[in-house]
């Protein structure tokens, strides 16, 4: 399916979605609360069949005070890709878990929790994935500091 056509079909599913401009692949921004429903629909639909969650990560926009969650979707049947993003506030980063739709999201969400501190509602086992359990803070946040770190001189 062509990129424009794909976007049209996806927009019909997603209420409140916006198309991101200047991207090299179809990309949508949706409200965080609608994520599990939307991903389930995208997976079930015959024409789209986004059955694989390639990656889930986040970006810390410090000035805007939001964490942007990214979901990279891929269809093994049709070979097309889609990026879905959603913003959650930095101070209260709570998002619904999509591990009920894509099982791999369980570990990917644990990693994002580890690095960015996003709390996933409905996640079966939200623990740190890579760092020690005793670690304080979430190191990929832009304002993370610890005793070991050296700041880059200006």
């Amino acid at each position: 399916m062509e990129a424009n056509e794909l976007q049209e079909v996806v927009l019909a599913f997603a209420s409140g979605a916006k198309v991101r401009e200047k991207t090299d692949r179809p990309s949508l921004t949706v409200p965080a609360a609608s994520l599990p429903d939307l991903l389930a629909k995208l997976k079930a639909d015959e024409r789209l069949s986004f059955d694989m969650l390639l990656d889930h990560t986040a970006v810390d926009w410090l000035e805007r005070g939001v964490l942007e969650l990214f979901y990279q979707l891929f269809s093994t049947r049709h070979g097309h890709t889609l990026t879905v993003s959603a913003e959650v506030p930095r101070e209260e980063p709570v998002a619904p878990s999509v591990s009920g739709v894509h099982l791999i999201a369980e570990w990917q969400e644990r990693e994002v929790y580890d690095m960015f501190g996003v709390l996933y509602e409905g996640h079966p086992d939200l623990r740190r994935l890579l760092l020690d359990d005793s670690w304080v803070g979430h190191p990929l946040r832009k304002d993370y500091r610890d005793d070991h770190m050296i700041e880059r001189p200006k």
Partner: protein
Amino acid sequence: MGLKIIDDFPGVAMKVPGGSVMLGVMDAVINWARANSLWPLSFGTSCCAIEMLMATGAPHQDMARFGAEVARPSPRQADLLVVAGTIVKRMAPTLRTLYEQMAEPRYVMATGACAISGGPFIYNNYSVVRGADEIIPVDVYVPGCPPRPEAFFYALLTLQRMIRSGDSLKSRHVHKRPVMSALPAGITVADIQEELRDLLERDSAVDVEKEAAAGPWAGKGYC
């Protein structure tokens, strides 16, 4: 001292850790053997491992010329720990354990910017240890990101020189202060190969007479 032979032959006869007496000229033979049979432990954590352990061990570069081609996956059988790559905090205890499991005498070579100082990860980083020498004592530093195989050979020859000039019996592991083994500027691959050929010819046999003549006991009629 108590032992007459030590008083009679200062510099030649000395006490060894076991308490018995050994002639000092044995140092040359033992050092020669140690320097020419360095078995590296293949401890590669990132991109430096490709240059240091894969490319140099392969036939084109041919580490076997220096008697150092037997890369061991077990620290019990290795003499030389080549730290090839970034050391993160979670890897640090493993590195220390590996070092302590190696039999003495043991030597450590830190190759590449990451193993020397943390390299590109030195600032604003939460996970990378700033240099292997925060965890274990390092004998030779090899700068580069990653170093070329020639630089690694240069470092290997530097280490061999250190071992050969060290006191093999009196102190068993780190002999001298650590050195930075940087290739001098303007040196080409052809120069290095020629120099290596000469070195190999010179080092293929130890001249005990000559080593003895260069020692502190020279000219006293002992040897």
